[in-house]
């Protein structure tokens, strides 16, 4: 039996649930099809970023190289370093990755541990200029062996005289208390040492690439008297990175940076405030109000609010009540973005994402206005039978949703540069507009 016959002889349909049914079930009663550790994980191009975070976007390996001038030694079986070939093709990474490959004896006995300091030395000697830091990335094998990488790093530091840091790519702990992407954020800021505080310095934590240049957050902070706004991705040198320790407070823009912020609070006494990436403009306004109140400031954001509101209305007037499908493979929380789109008068026919407990705030909101929105898990085995190419959406957001709707207008919305705030909403609709125009959708579907 050929593969083509196999996929056509469907054993059933892809599992999905309506927003109304999911809201009623609640997080506690969520069907197991939406709970990833209860079933095998279906591997499709839609889930590549989930299954292999190193292959696309910022996984542990690329994120671990965010410190300016750093290089990485990946200590693992060959299989863990394989997709790094892709990264070496990306600008600037070719000279920054090195590998110490384990053999079958290493993974059982852990004898590779003795070789790591010498391997670090050889990497150091191989480089024409001294790196600022050598990151040692270890994987599931060392998680199970219980390798004390902190001790090995100290030993390696003794040989090369520069910081050597562990970077834990433990896929096994992905749903644990401290998943790899949380861990790596903490590691990145662990080299900061106490400096005298400057009341005019602030750090933005959470993203590995900078916010979009026209993000109003920069101006809001400057209006508050902040002179230095530092993001690790905008630090031009290791010395500039170290200056992040002088910050008066940290702004946490991704929940995965909470641990890092807490660590900085304990070690360097830098407090933090968390802001979320949102697409509902009234919620963005509310968040800025709360942020201002926490700092004893009044944030004047009316201009940006009105500008953004107009941009949304203009898009809506031009393109009408488009039907969206939203995936989780994008720079947004799929449920929050869906709730926003519904509030602007669009339809959301499908959402591809596994809900967390926090997402139920949005799911209830979605269910109230669009009870029939279907929610799929990208990872559930029956997604093998998803009817690819069905016309359930005019425009799809995210790499995953794009995979399911190859004939719809597709917006990946997954650039490295991080959209945020009102500017993020405006850029989102500009990007959608551009995609619609380029696809010719406007001519065929609206004018006629």
């Amino acid at each position, binding site marked *: 039996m050929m593969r083509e016959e196999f996929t056509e002889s469907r054993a059933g349909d892809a599992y999905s649930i309506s927003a109304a049914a999911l809201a009623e079930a609640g997080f506690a009663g969520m069907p197991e099809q939406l709970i990833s550790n209860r079933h095998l994980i279906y591997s499709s191009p839609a889930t590549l970023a989930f299954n292999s975070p190193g292959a696309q976007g910022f996984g542990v390996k690329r994120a671990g190289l965010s410190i300016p001038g750093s290089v990485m030694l990946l200590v693992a079986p060959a299989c*863990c370093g394989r997709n790094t070939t892709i990264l070496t093709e990306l600008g600037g990474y070719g000279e920054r990755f090195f590998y110490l490959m384990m053999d079958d004896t290493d993974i059982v006995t852990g004898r590779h541990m003795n070789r790591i300091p010498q391997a670090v030395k050889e990497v150091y000697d191989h480089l024409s200029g001294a790196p600022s830091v050598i990151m040692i990335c270890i994987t599931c094998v060392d998680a199970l062996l219980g390798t004390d990488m902190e001790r090995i790093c100290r030993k390696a530091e003794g040989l090369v005289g520069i910081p050597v840091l562990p970077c834990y790519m433990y*896929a096994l702990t992905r749903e644990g208390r401290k998943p790899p992407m949380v861990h790596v954020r903490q590691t990145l800021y662990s080299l900061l040492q106490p400096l005298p505080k400057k009341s005019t310095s602030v750090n933005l934590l959470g993203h590995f690439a900078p916010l979009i240049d026209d993000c109003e957050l920069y101006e809001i902070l400057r209006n508050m008297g902040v002179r230095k706004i530092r993001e690790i991705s905008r630090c031009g040198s290791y010395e500039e990175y170290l200056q992040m320790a002088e910050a008066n407070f940290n702004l946490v823009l991704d929940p995965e940076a909470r641990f890092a912020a807490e660590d900085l609070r304990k070690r360097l006494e830098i407090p933090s405030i968390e802001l979320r990436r949102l697409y509902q403009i009234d919620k963005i306004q509310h968040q800025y109000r709360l942020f201002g109140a926490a700092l004893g400031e009044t944030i004047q954001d009316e201009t940006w609010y009105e500008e953004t509101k107009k941009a949304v209305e203009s898009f809506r007037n031009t393109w009408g009540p488009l039907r969206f499908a939203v995936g989780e493979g994008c720079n947004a929380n799929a449920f929050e973005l869906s709730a926003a789109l519904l509030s602007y008068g669009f339809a959301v026919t499908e959402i591809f994402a596994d809900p967390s407990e926090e997402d139920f705030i949005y799911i209830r909101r979605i269910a109230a206005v669009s009870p029939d929105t279907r929610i799929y898990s990208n990872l559930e085995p029956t997604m093998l039978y998803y009817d690819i190419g069905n016309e359930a959406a005019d425009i799809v957001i995210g790499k995953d949703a794009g995979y399911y709707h190859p004939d719809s207008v597709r917006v990946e919305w997954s650039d490295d540069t991080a959209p945020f705030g009102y500017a993020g909403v405006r850029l989102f609709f500009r990007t959608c507009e551009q995609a619609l125009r380029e696809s010719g959708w406007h001519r065929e579907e609206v004018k006629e």
Partner: protein
Amino acid sequence: MKGLRLVIPPFAPDQSGAAGVFCMLPGLIVILDAGGCAGNICGFDEPRWFGSRSAIFSAGLRDMDAILGRDDKLVEKIAKACEKIRASFVAVIGTPVPAVIATDYRAVGRMIRKKTGLPVMMVNTDGTAGYDEGEKKAWKELVRLAVEETGEPAESGRNAVGILGLTPLSFHRAFSGEELESIKAGVQQREGCDSVYIYTAIDEMETAALVRKNLVVSPSAIPAAEYLKERYGTPYEIWCDPEWILPLEEKLQAAAEHPPKRVLVVHQQVLACGIRNILRDRTGAAVDVASWFGMEPSLQEPGDRVLREEEEWMSLVREGGYDLIVADQLLARAVPEYAGAWWDLPHFALSGRLQP
């Protein structure tokens, strides 16, 4: 230092090789990992995956599954998936995680078979060996399952030839449908047979012992061919046409005025030996073959080398005196001082790049 790579990234591992053998077959393929290995296999080492909807799954192991050895949970997950997915077999492919916790593959295989009623293939790869080792294990399991599960083969009288070992990882990329037809036509002409099987379907696989002969096009398929020969008397020949991936004739014509004298060919051994034979016949050059993967002793000649370490590759080029290297361009970055000619011979298991 052993295992240290300063210039060349790691090559396709055994688990990718195993997955590539099963990829186009109608089974439930489970990578026994936490997620990253499945992502690496599908997103990088299996070019056919992007265009197909293969039933490849990750077991989604978590730390406590590994620490507590929850095999029953794995079997349960597989059984549930089998209720929803129509599959004619289950293949479970190992990764470093089951290797570290010493998973009992035979026992788990029996449990899955009992629970699902489906034929089961367990491939104990561990992510540390080359792709060819995984292919070897998978080809052998697959041949055993396909032939044995259907009973002793009867005399067929078919004038058919099979091609064993034609995977993207053993060549430059996935062959297109048109290219496969062309390969089949070439083999048909060479062998004077009625039909040619490339074993990408279970019913074709079941005939592996019935064909007049199997052509083995990569070293990783030799043990499976050997098994068929020993068990069923099906003969095999190790052979592959380099023109499938390299326009050798074109290259030779272009180099006619300055023919090479000393050549190094680096690829999987069967293809590399095919290139050697043609180069030697046409130019009289001395040709060495090297491979980063396993080599069949009967095909080796003095001067041939199995490469393991980056340093071995560098010293081979430095000291070999070659004026032509035929190898994947990825390897050139480790020998920038080499001044001779270089014919790019892409090997998907090395560079993983998609060729036009």
